[in-house]
């Protein structure tokens, strides 16, 4: 009897939880999640997601009292008429072929894309102002976003949140592939979290470990979402995500075992007291032929099964808000020890992946080649390809060829906007049908332009970056997918709209390219000045001497050296001198 009463009390306490207090109902909520997925070759991907939902309409302007939603971003959204904002800062490149489909990929460097409200009259001005303010907030060089690297894609980037219309004139997209991401970008990102890095999952975000990794990507996504199922009111959602890939094999003395402490040099002790959900998911899907689940310690609070990106996955779940978790030990240190060292067989190659490179020789012309792989055994599907190429690579559109299985592949949709020198970049968008089990090769030739000497970057011999091209596709799933409850499924299933049960949305970024441009010898002007000045000065000197020298007849002197020598000899001989 007593036992049951105690249990009931416990349940009641749990239900009350740390969520809204007894007073007013809170209109905002925070959910934090960490997904750990072991990758082949001993890498571990850790993805953090902090989701703040606010049941208020930021656009109305009268809202100015912030609780969990960061004030800096909220004011930005309200002041500049932003409908949707996606900013990602990435160091490194997600190797899709080796690591599989990423939960949320971003191109190397900085990527920013924004949908503005239809009420914004001067979108370019708002975009410029927005990038300047964001550059201040995140300590990134986003202020270098200008018309030469901004494009307006027509099809590739659709709003991810609630949207009434999709007039693409309200969209701006820019990538800065040169941007280097480091601690100074992480600190302001962490400052936006309600708990900072003081409690909850964010205590793991230690800069010295996060940047000692193969891939680091942090992002901010703001979008309006439906408040409830009836969707009569709007809520605003802020997602802060951070993905990092650790090479445990290299750092663990040849062992692929990992633990939270080994990766982050911290362990988890509590949930953020403001969070209504705080969970750690570990991907324990079977890797070997026997279909054995991976074993993690301590034992998880529950196990969750889901179909993610066309793949059946099993997750071990640790609920940090459950009091049972911290009963036995004060801290949570999730560990994975491989039973046999050769466990982790090959990862099945992802259905869609791509590669891009630049070819050609000399400094005049070149060729950009993109290879898109569809490894699906029997389904063909279309893919949207977005290329932005800076103006100083002049694309020859007539050389655009798309070849699949030795035959020409005509794209069903092409949007091409040619570049204008120093004004805007090339924009090429194509919808290409990828036959089942095929490789599609897209090539286009270009000519390198000559830049003015002030337009070169500080280290011009390093080369000039061309941003990643973007592939967006609805990839047919190999296995049937169930309709999942979006709010309950782990991580990112709900950022991209899921269509029917048979396919899932994938956005991939290719490698950024590094192209050499003809680079002048920058010391040349000074050399020329020095040389000509010297010549002029020498001429001037002799001319001056010629003009100012006075000639006069010199009387013969007392004799030269020979005479003096002769006199010395004569002195020795006792003969009178000459």
């Amino acid at each position, binding site marked *: 009897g007593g036992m049951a009463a105690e249990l009931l009390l416990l349940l009641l306490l749990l239900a009350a939880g740390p969520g809204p207090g007894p007073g007013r109902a809170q209109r905002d909520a925070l959910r934090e999640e960490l997904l750990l997925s072991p990758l082949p070759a001993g890498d571990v991907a850790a993805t953090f997601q902090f989701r703040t939902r606010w049941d208020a309409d930021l656009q109305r302007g009268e809202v100015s*009292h912030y*609780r969990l939603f960061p004030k*800096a971003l909220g*004011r930005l959204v309200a*002041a500049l008429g932003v409908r949707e904002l996606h900013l990602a800062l990435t160091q490194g490149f997600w190797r899709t072929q080796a690591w599989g489909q990423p939960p949320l990929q971003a191109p190397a460097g900085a990527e920013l894309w924004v949908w503005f409200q239809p009420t914004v009259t001067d979108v370019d001005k708002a975009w410029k102002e927005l990038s300047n303010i964001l550059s201040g907030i995140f300590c990134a060089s986003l202020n270098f976003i200008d018309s030469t690297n901004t494009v307006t894609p027509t099809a590739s980037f659709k709003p991810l949140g609630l949207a009434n219309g999709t007039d693409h004139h309200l969209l701006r997209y820019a990538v800065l592939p040169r941007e280097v991401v480091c601690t100074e970008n992480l600190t302001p990102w962490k400052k936006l979290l309600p708990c900072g890095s003081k409690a909850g999952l964010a205590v793991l975000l230690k800069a010295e470990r996060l940047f000692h990794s193969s891939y680091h990507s942090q992002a901010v996504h703001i979008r309006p979402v439906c408040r409830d199922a009836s969707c009569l009111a709007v809520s605003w959602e802020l997602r802060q995500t951070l993905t990092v890939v650790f090479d445990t094999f290299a750092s663990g003395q040849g062992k692929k075992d990992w633990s939270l402490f080994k990766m982050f040099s911290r362990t988890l002790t509590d949930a953020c007291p403001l969070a209504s959900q705080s969970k750690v998911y570990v991907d324990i899907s079977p890797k070997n032929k026997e279909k054995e689940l991976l074993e993690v310690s301590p034992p998880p609070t529950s196990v969750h099964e889901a179909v993610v990106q066309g793949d059946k996955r099993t997750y071990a779940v640790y609920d940090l808000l459950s009091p049972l978790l911290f009963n036995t030990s004060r801290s949570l240190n999730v560990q994975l020890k491989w039973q046999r060292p050769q466990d982790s067989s090959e990862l099945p190659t992802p259905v869609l992946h791509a590669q891009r490179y630049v070819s050609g020789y000399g400094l005049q012309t070149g060729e950009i080649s993109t290879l898109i792989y569809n490894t699906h055994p029997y389904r063909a599907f279309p893919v949207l390809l977005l290329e932005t190429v800076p103006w100083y690579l002049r694309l020859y559109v007539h050389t655009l060829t798309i070849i699949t299985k030795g035959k020409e592949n005509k794209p069903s949709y092409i949007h091409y906007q040619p570049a204008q020198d120093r004004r805007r970049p090339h924009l090429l968008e194509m919808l290409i049908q990828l036959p089942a089990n095929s490789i599609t090769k897209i090539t286009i030739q270009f000519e390198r332009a000559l830049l003015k000497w002030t337009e070169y970057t500080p280290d011009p011999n390093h080369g000039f970056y061309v941003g990643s091209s973007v592939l967006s596709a609805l990839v047919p799933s190999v296995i049937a997918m169930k309709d999942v409850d979006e709010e309950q499924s782990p991580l990112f299933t709900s950022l991209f709209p899921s269509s029917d049960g048979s396919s899932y949305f994938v956005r991939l970024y290719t490698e950024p390219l590094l192209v050499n441009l003809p680079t002048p010898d920058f010391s040349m002007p000074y050399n020329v000045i020095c040389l000509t*000045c010297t010549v002029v*000065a020498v001429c001037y*000197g002799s001319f*001056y001497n010629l003009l100012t020298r006075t000639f006069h007849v010199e009387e013969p002197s007392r004799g030269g050296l020979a005479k003096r020598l002769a006199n010395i000899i004569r002195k020795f001989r006792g003969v009178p001198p000459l």
Partner: protein
Amino acid sequence: ACAQLQLAVPVAVVFAPGSVSGDLPRPLPFGDVQETEIAVNQRTSVTSRYETVYRSTTAREEAALDAATAREADAALHLLQDASVGSLTVYVVPETSPLLPQGVSVYVGKHRSALVRAGGDLAALRTRLQQLTQVMSFTATSIAAALSDRVPDGQLGPDARRHLKSSLGYEITFSLLNPDPKSHDVDWDIEDAVNRYVQPVLDKLSLVANFSVDSQILYYAVLGVTPRFDKESSSFLLSAHSLPHVINPVEARLGSSAASLYPVLNFLLYVPERSHSPLYIQDKDGAPVPTNAFHSPRWGGIMVYNVEAPASPQASLPLHVDVDMVRVMEVFLAQLRLLFGLSWEELPPEFLLESPGNEGLADWELDRLLWAHTVENIATVSTTLTSLAQLLDKIGNIVIKDDVASEVYQAVASAQRAMAELAAGHLHSAFQASREAVTSSERAFFDPSLLHLLYFPDDQKFAIYIPLFLPMAVPILLSLAKIIRETRQRKKEPTKMD
């Protein structure tokens, strides 16, 4: 940087029947003008000019003055005046008038008028009037504070630099700092409190500047100083000398205003951690500060809000706390007044001020602010344009675009108009003109085309041509040396001849 300002204050002195002093120089109505010089520095002179009109009451004013209390009389008189911004009306009531309480000889109302008890001769009335006009318009110190960057350092009082610089707008941010969300679940109804207490004041102040108000809650934000534990009172103490170090670590979390360039006023409500409560602020003498708050000049204020410990130690955490917003807003509003330089100091003892009521601000206090801000704006414009002129003098080949030039012309014209309006006693239009002048001058000064780094400095041009100048200088220098040698020799030779 040279400025002669004349501040004209229209004053009307109205004599109620039975209060006219016997030694008036002329029969009513008549007017006179009093000028005084306010010394700032050699190049800036401010003259205050009180243009006083003396008259007797009209019938309706007389009726209004028959009210039972001073407050009612003030309200009734307000309806009869068409008091423009900056003007003052003083009603002289008989010495035995029941309107003023015992011991009070001057009553300052909510609007732009005051009641003065008659008594003594005209000279006594004049000194009283002078005190009154200084309270209700400006004093030498308030003008000096407005011109603080022109006044030599030693001459300003400690309070002079507390006031906010004049600006076109201000952003007010209320932040609730909860360093310990595990133990305290703090909730404040800031939206209601702002609407109820802050907005009326800001509506009144909207004549002076644009205001925007927002609030945020910051968790795990700690003060920069660890408070000292006091065994006697079993509480924690923050001493006055450690307060300067409190703000810095908090400031990093507050976040800057991204979308505007206006100065930010921060008001922080700090709920101390459970392990550091209760927390009290001590003043210089070691006594606890009754409001448990302090302010930082030109920055804002901080208030410490202690949470009462729960009766039973077993109470479940987090403890829900509803902040008493009346108590908090009282302190913050007082600090806001202080930051705008609206404090009732140095008041003669026989003065009585009417409480401004819900608006938090009397009309004449607004005028005080306008006088100070107008003077400050004109001084700022003059400083900005002077430094712009200095910059242009320094770079000979700088390009001044037409729009920059027109902004400069407009700034000068507006500043001159502001000065003319001040001299004419039209405070409101003077203030508007001075604001326009500030806007134009700042726009001209911060125009991106006037960045001096855009222009190649002349000394570097010379360095580039050194390979030319150096070899060319060699033969010239050599021949110079030769000429000197020869003249010396020529001088020596004749002496040898002797």
